């Protein structure tokens, strides 16, 4: 399958998961992981998942998130 075809398929899957009522974060994560595993294989794909989680979590912007809403 071409990369463009895979992208279209995964985007369609993402909207299907949205329609099923899945949380947006989980739906996008699942689709992203599937794409990475298909394109890069298990070893690299899973490695990238770990590094993406870390690099996105350690955003300087998040430092401003308040600790309490009360």
């Amino acid at each position, binding site marked *: 399958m071409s990369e463009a075809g895979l992208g279209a398929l995964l985007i369609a899957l993402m909207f299907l*998961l*949205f*329609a*099923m*009522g*899945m*949380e*947006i*974060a*989980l739906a996008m*994560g*699942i689709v992203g*992981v599937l794409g990475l595993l298909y394109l890069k294989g298990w070893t690299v794909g*899973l*490695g990238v*998942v*770990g*590094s993406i*989680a*870390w690099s996105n*979590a*350690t*955003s*300087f912007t*998040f*430092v401003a*998130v308040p600790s309490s809403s009360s």
Partner: protein
Amino acid sequence: MLDAIKESNLEEKEWQDAAAAEERARKRLPELGMTIVDPSKDEMAKARQIAKAAWDIWLQRTGPDGKRGLELALEGAGPVAAARDREGVEGGGAALGAGHAGPGAAHLLRRPHAVLLQSSAAASWTSWDPSSCSSVIFGAAAQTYRVGGHVRVDLVTSTCRAPRARGCAVLNLALGLVFLAVVIWVTSQSALTAYRYGRVSAVLLYPLWLPMLLIPAGLLLMALCMVGTLRRQLRAALGPWDRRDEVPPSAGTE
């Protein structure tokens, strides 16, 4: 493959590129109003002595693998340090880079001035790196899930009949749990690797495995909440017909 690498002469080219880049920087930085200061022998000796404690801790944690890695890094640093000695730069930033960085020495050898900058920031404590602690945000994932704070679209499921919405909810929870299990596994492995190899933050040099562990820990809490919801959802699915609807994430809100 090794023969092909030798033929390509890549390492030699990389060193030449690094030397050319440094030469350009040494010309350009004064033009931009900066002063380049090469550390004296005394400063270098002091930096090596301070860095040695970090080397020892790192070698203790990494064992024979770390020892071998360090030997390789120092072996790679040899020609550069020797060349700098010949140039009269007294060992230069390269040796300091190896001393300061431990596991990342080979990489930092290409950026001696960046290493010096990091060393001075760490010594003065005037700069800190809080962003790597922002992974604490994952600690809130479970509570956000419990109060229904994760954004989702219920435009379609709200118009479905209860059994269909219930089926979607079970499927969503099962898929979500599989996904979380994968992410928890890989992020735990990353934290474990950081612990084994003594990775530290860029400036304050605190152990990176601590903030890294917050990601799988927070996601594990969220997964446990989802397991509870899945159990209640399955119970509802097997219960009376009129109660076979989608259950809320938290039992207290039913």
